[in-house]
């Protein structure tokens, strides 16, 4: 079995923030795309800024991104199947002999994919004094703590 790699693009909000979702509490928060993709400061896992629990960073992809990834994978599979059946049809229909076999097939339809785009929302931006990276969260002063998604300390 071969492995196929796909690239998906997400357009951040006006300040370059992209939405993520906690696998534990399902809360949404935003991270700065440049900081998230910074190869000079690699990281394997993220902390949820709301509940503070940690998990592998891929687990924090938002449901919208997961849906998009699944749709792209499904479309790739559809394309490959359609190609194979088309080839088979052409080969069978061209064959000459005593018994003629005619093949017809109805191509599978692809699902629609949409452009992923983050809108400007009302979250508050915080900067971690420990690692200097930023996060945008819904914050209620005096009623909640915010944790740094990268290093886990409270901000």
């Amino acid at each position, binding site marked *: 079995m071969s492995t196929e790699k796909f690239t998906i693009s997400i357009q951040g909000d006006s300040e370059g923030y992209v939405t993520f979702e906690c696998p*534990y509490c399902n809360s949404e928060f935003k991270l700065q795309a440049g900081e998230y993709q910074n190869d000079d400061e690699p990281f394997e896992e993220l902390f949820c800024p709301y*509940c*503070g629990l940690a998990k592998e960073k891929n687990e924090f992809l938002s449901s919208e991104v997961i849906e998009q990834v699944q749709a792209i994978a499904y479309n790739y599979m559809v394309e490959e199947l359609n190609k194979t059946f088309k080839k088979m049809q052409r080969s069978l229909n061209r064959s000459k002999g005593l018994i003629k076999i005619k093949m017809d097939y109805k191509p599978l339809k692809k699902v629609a994919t949409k452009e992923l785009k983050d809108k400007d929302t009302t979250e508050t931006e915080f900067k971690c004094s420990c690692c200097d990276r930023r996060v945008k969260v819904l914050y209620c002063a*005096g009623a909640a703590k915010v*944790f740094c998604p990268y290093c886990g300390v*409270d901000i």
Partner: protein
Amino acid sequence: MSVLWGGYMNRLELRKLSLEFRRLSSNLLNSTDDTADINLSRFLKFINGNELISGIIQDKISGVDYDFKECYDIGSDDWADYTPPVDEACHIKAQYDYLNFINNENTVNVRSQAMNYCWSDKKINAIMQNFLDMAFKPLIDFINDQLSMEMIVLDEEAKAMGGNTYIQNIETVNGSASQQNSGVINTYNTTNDTSSMLELIDKLLASLPEIQGVDAEEIENVKDDLEMVQEQLKTDNPKKNRIGKALVGIKKFASDFSKELVVTLAVGAVTGADWGMLLQQLENFIR
């Protein structure tokens, strides 16, 4: 220094404790077949070994009579049913006792317990993670919330201590003056005498049904907080940590619905200053 939990933990220690607790909790919840038992043992050792966390748990479950076997259906011949009790203290006790049960019983481990339940997942690691999430996540959330609450109380205290706020003690009467650049000085005469706080609480509780335009649940929540403070102030030895936690809720209510309170309070002859005065007195009381 924190005034809560005997004042032995400062802000930095609390931050480190919170991070360490969240790290161990995450490890437990993400355990695999190979690591689940050791992660559970480490988690239990940590929460038992830390004075603040074990205090938080004991504070919640002391005097609670509940058998964890009811919650987790231990001993069932069929697939086990998870039926958490309605009462939160019973649920916390069930989880804590179940942790001890898995850790201490020789014939029991995380895998054997996870396999007692019927799961849609077929992969063993996914089953174990689902089980750990179901069985212990509410306890982790509870401890996590309490630690965050401690930090919020410390932050609020630090704010009150810093800046242009001055505390003046005159025998039993404390006066607090918040001076701003405009030259306006807000003063509150406060006292550590619990009777005046109890009078204020009675007055505010009576005004709650008159409040318009605020969700009934929010009013219920602040009523619970006020009653919690009232209950503690009436005891011989009020628990300051409980008052501190209720204070956070009252403060949030007073700040979120300040406009609604002003309208209603004018009609009900309770002024906005009454809320401010109670908050000030309570802060001084727990300090």
